[in-house]
């Protein structure tokens, strides 16, 4: 069976892993309630999208 000849050095291993990274989430501040929310989505805090499209939340 084919087997690696050498242990992969830390340097090589880390170089391979430079492309494994997380991207930051693109958040914007809701113009109505100034809470952060995802782009192209209704604001989960106030339920508005582009100023209207209201989902009214009733707190219990």
């Amino acid at each position: 069976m084919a087997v690696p000849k050498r242990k992969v050095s830390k340097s090589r291993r880390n170089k391979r892993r430079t492309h494994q990274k997380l991207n930051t989430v693109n958040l914007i501040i809701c113009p109505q309630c100034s809470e952060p929310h995802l782009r192209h989505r209704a604001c989960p805090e106030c339920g508005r999208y582009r100023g209207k499209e209201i989902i009214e939340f009733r707190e219990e």
Partner: protein
Amino acid sequence: MRHRKAGRKLSRTSSHRLAMFRNLVTSVLLHERVMTTDAKAKEIRRWVDWMITLGKRGDLAARRQALKVIRDKNVVHKLFADLAPRYQDVNGGYSRVIKIGYRRGDGAPMSMIELVDFTGVEKKRRRKKKKKEKVKAEAAPVEEQKAHVEEEETGEAEQKVEEEVAEPEVKEAQVAAESGEVGEEKEVETTSSDSEEEQKKEE
């Protein structure tokens, strides 16, 4: 290959899929606003357009075609009598999809699909936030305003931070982290560290 084959399969057999879309399009026409997953909402748009186009044709053959899809006679009546006149001057695109967020439980991306002239307001129950969170939420807008002030006048903001105890600083850092704006975050960090150093000097 599914090259150039339109439509989503949604992991269902064709009969299951057909049944589901018939139910969904009936619901959309009845309630005019429906919450569902992104994929289903996007797929149901074509069905809604198709039905409303039938409604606008308005003849008996169109009505029979609509009855083959829509499960409720009353909804077909509503489509031909009520919805069709509303869209007489509109050519297609009778529905609108707005992404809402992610479903609790399986994290499915959720959307809201509505007819474009829907004017009502969706009322949704939401659990009351815990006291701590509520306090935080109340404090958040104020502190964000402060963050803006910090951007403009860093000197004055530092003094404000100094006046407050250690707790608000932590909250402020949290708010900045949540907002995810790197600029703000950095500034808050620098100001808090500065004020900490100054506090040490005072001691």
